[in-house]
């Protein structure tokens, strides 16, 4: 009797699994994607006419809106593409999240037209309204001004100026409307402090040029040359460290069990004059684990888990100017009272965990809003891990307050207090602009 019930149960389970598998592998076709903006409407089909696209692009340029090719570069949906229903639904959600995440639009919706006549075909409607393209931000003693969506495309420029930083960054992420990437960066750190002979100020300049391609909306690879110059404060002599580097970047939204986002960034650089390789990788995972903590009437309140990890390696005899800095490198900092030289490492492994609580939304300067966030964290770094690791762990435990300024400011300001197992503490102030 028991065996029969077990057997029947197994048969039912197998049938259920097969049915689920069948549903998963049942292909659908993306028939068309309609893009609706305040300036134009464009329908992208497998046999779309070039003239219609040109008209939409002209309308976008005339009204300083975002061009259709730029919007479509944030989705993997394409007319004629066959996908499983589950893949398609996930990609619809990802497309919406990516478009929201750009900060280029005040509103974004990605809808699927309910299939009535052709059950295997899907029509997607993307509706966006252009947002504020300027970025104003800053950090410790410098300000930043940026402009996104130059020419209605994925092109941006950011300018930095202040006591300890001057520079410019220019990025185009959709060259030729084919997802080619070009990045140019020129930054000068601590130039004014070194002119004023501030103790410990070492002017450091960074130049980099990267060219690459988006392999998918979530993954990009790039290669390019660069140069780091570091001056000694006392003898004013400069050391030059030219390099060539390869970069892989991944940023992906996940929707399994929890809505999450994970990122991965990896770099490999060769410094021919120093004859040194430098490898570095970092990654993060964030997931919302609870929403509406204080009831549905208060906006913007959730608990988020944020995990990050990083690692880097260089030969032990590499110049100190090229070393990894975990003292003030934003999310990869050990936020307790270690001195800067103890956190300047040639190789390391780093891990950090934060539990973040957003508790509402406050309005300042009338329409501007800010989301205050309390967080507790723990950081740990192992210097020179591997067979020669001497058992040192650099750690930090603490808490802080982050003020998240959403559109149109796009800047997070965080102040944290952290202590290590030796009882040395430090207050860290960190500003991060979402580009």
């Amino acid at each position, binding site marked *: 009797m028991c065996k029969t019930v077990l057997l029947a149960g197994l048969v039912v389970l197998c049938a259920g699994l097969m049915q689920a598998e069948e549903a998963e592998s049942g292909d659908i076709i993306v028939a068309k994607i309609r893009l609706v903006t305040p300036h134009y409407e464009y329908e992208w089909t497998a046999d779309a006419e070039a003239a219609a696209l040109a008209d939409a692009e002209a309308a976008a340029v005339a009204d300083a809106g975002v061009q259709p090719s730029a919007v479509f570069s944030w989705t993997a949906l394409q007319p004629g593409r066959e996908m499983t229903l589950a893949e398609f639904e996930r990609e619809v959600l990802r497309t919406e999240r990516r478009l929201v995440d750009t900060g280029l639009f*005040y*509103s974004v919706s990605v809808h699927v*037209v309910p299939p*009535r006549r052709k059950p295997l075909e899907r029509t997607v409607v993307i509706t966006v309204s252009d947002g504020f393209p300027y970025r104003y931000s800053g950090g410790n003693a410098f300000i930043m001004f940026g402009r996104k969506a130059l020419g209605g495309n994925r092109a941006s420029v950011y300018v930095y100026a202040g006591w300890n930083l001057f520079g410019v960054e220019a990025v185009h992420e959709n060259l030729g409307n084919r997802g080619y990437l070009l990045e140019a960066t020129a930054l000068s750190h601590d130039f004014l402090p070194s002119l004023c002979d501030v103790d410990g100020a070492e002017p450091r300049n960074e130049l980099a040029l990267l060219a690459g391609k988006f392999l998918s909306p979530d993954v990009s690879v790039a290669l390019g040359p660069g140069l780091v110059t570091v001056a000694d404060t006392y003898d004013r002599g400069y050391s030059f460290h030219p390099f060539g580097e390869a970069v892989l970047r991944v940023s992906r939204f996940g929707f399994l069990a929890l809505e999450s986002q994970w990122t991965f960034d990896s770099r490999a650089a060769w410094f021919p004059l120093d004859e040194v390789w430098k490898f570095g990788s970092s990654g993060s995972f964030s997931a919302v684990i609870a929403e509406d903590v204080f009831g549905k009437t208060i906006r913007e309140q959730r608990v988020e888990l944020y995990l990050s990890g990083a690692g880097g390696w260089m030969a032990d005899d590499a110049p100190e100017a090229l070393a990894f800095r975990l003292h003030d490198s934003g999310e990869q900092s050990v936020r307790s009272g270690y001195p800067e030289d103890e956190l300047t490492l040639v190789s390391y492994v780093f891990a950090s965990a934060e539990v973040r609580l957003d508790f509402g939304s406050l309005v300042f300067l*009338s*329409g*501007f809003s800010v989301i205050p966030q309390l967080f507790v964290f723990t950081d740990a770094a192992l210097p020179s891990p591997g067979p020669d690791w001497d058992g040192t762990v650099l750690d930090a435990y603490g808490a802080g307050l982050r003020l998240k300024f959403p559109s149109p400011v796009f800047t997070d300001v965080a102040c944290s207090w952290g202590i290590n197992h030796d009882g040395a503490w430090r207050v860290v102030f960190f500003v991060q602009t979402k580009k």
Partner: protein
Amino acid sequence: MKMMMVVCITVLCAFGVCAQSMDDSIERGIALHDRALAEGEETALKCRETLEPFIEKNMVARAYYGSVITIQASFYADENPVHSLTLLEEGAQYMDSAVSNDPDNGELRLIRLSNGIEVSRSSPLKRYAVIADDVRWFEKHPLPSSPEDCAAILLNCGLYYLDAGDMDAALDALETCVESGAETAAVQNARDILRRYEE
């Protein structure tokens, strides 16, 4: 006695004229409101000037006054976003106070709902949490008999459902709007939106 009657009649006439004059002014203000977006800031300012004397007594005037401030905000969206956001917030406050003073007035809720959708779509100020209450109110109350009002309510509820991601409810509301038989801009708008959501 005659004297008394003459005085009473005179006072009543004066009140009547005043009420008539207030209604006319509000009517004129609403007409200016409806033209402000197309005509520019000058019309918006004229509308504010016309409605301002009545915003403490008449909640419809107050709601339109708030709405025209948000229209005025749209003229500053590019060149002075801080001022634009300030105006949006100010306008929204007038509309919210009008609705809270007279929560069972469908006209006020419709003004706030249509304005809230437009503001939420075109600015960083998101009014969805507030206008959700208006949509719930319309769901609970019978639609008005006038096809024009009915179409406007259905259109705006449909737009709200679209933004909330409830496609079935959105398409139902928009299709009912088109079927309402009114020949208004709302129905034309609903037709255009439904066309976008055809296979």
